[in-house]
């Protein structure tokens, strides 16, 4: 029997409970990653159409080496960074808030230490897990920015 663990930080919304550092940090990381996936996904599409890092750098007034560093990972990104990169690619961010629902855990668990473990082990999906909630979580999309009116000089 093999053991497998899921460290779950998904919680039901409870307005009276204080969120743990784990929950706060985990969802910050998820957001950061979603932003990175969105930007880099659009860059890869543009890159295949011969849109270069140098062109992106010029468009958003940065040096090419800065673009290389930014596209390699979201470590130091700010909201402004995301805005600039997406706009440079011809997009702006579309956002929606989606409710946090129960975790879906993928594998049954046979470990008898489950109750006492400091980690939460994988188990069956919780009773209130709603399979129809799958697919509702795609909360971030990049939207093509609207064409700007031409200003006559």
């Amino acid at each position, binding site marked *: 029997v*093999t053991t497998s663990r*899921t460290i779950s930080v998904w919680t039901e919304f409870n307005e009276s409970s204080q969120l743990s550092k784990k929950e706060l940090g985990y969802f910050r990381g998820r957001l950061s990653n979603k932003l990175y996936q969105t930007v880099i996904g659009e860059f890869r599409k543009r890159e295949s159409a011969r849109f270069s890092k140098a062109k992106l750098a010029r468009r958003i007034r940065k040096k090419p080496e800065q673009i290389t560093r930014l596209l390699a990972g979201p470590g*130091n990104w700010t909201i402004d960074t995301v805005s600039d990169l997406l706009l440079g690619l011809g997009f702006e961010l579309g956002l929606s808030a989606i409710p946090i629902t129960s975790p*879906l855990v993928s594998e049954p668990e046979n470990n008898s230490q489950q109750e006492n473990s400091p980690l939460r082990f994988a188990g069956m999906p919780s009773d209130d897990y709603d399979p129809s909630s799958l697919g509702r*979580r795609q909360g971030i999309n990049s939207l093509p920015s609207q064409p700007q009116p031409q200003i006559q000089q």
Partner: protein
Amino acid sequence: MSIQILIEKCLENETLFILHPSAPEVGAKRIIYLSPVVMEFLGRDDFRSSRLLSELEAFVMGDIVSISMIPRNARSEMMGMLEPIENGLFDYRSRAPRPGLRLIGGFARKDCFIALGMYLRRTMNEPEWRAAIRECDLAWAERFKKHLPMMTGVDPSDYLSNYFCMD
């Protein structure tokens, strides 16, 4: 005995753990095995460990991974090949928030990463890197005997699907 059988044995004796994503949109496209030290760290209630957890879950779910196949070239990339390249070791680079963390390990096959050691980046100078790589080499050999980490060259597509490489 195949490396997969040895991995299964490690799971049985808990010298390795498999990370299952807990997020609802689960649909694992990659596999990551973690040493007990890394797994214990991920179970902590703090900002740093939970950030690493979310990153590793994204890795498992098949999100785009930036990678550098030139040792010492990685700056912001999520993964980098380590010297000596013939050892087939990589580091997974979790850079924010500080302190930066490095997970060192190798691929058993494409999209299957085994992280055996975890280190604080700020403590890593040349001797510490060498020691860490040696440590992971030994940890790998201890678990998988004659099966070395996958090493097929420096084409990232051999190791990862859905990657982004700017080398």
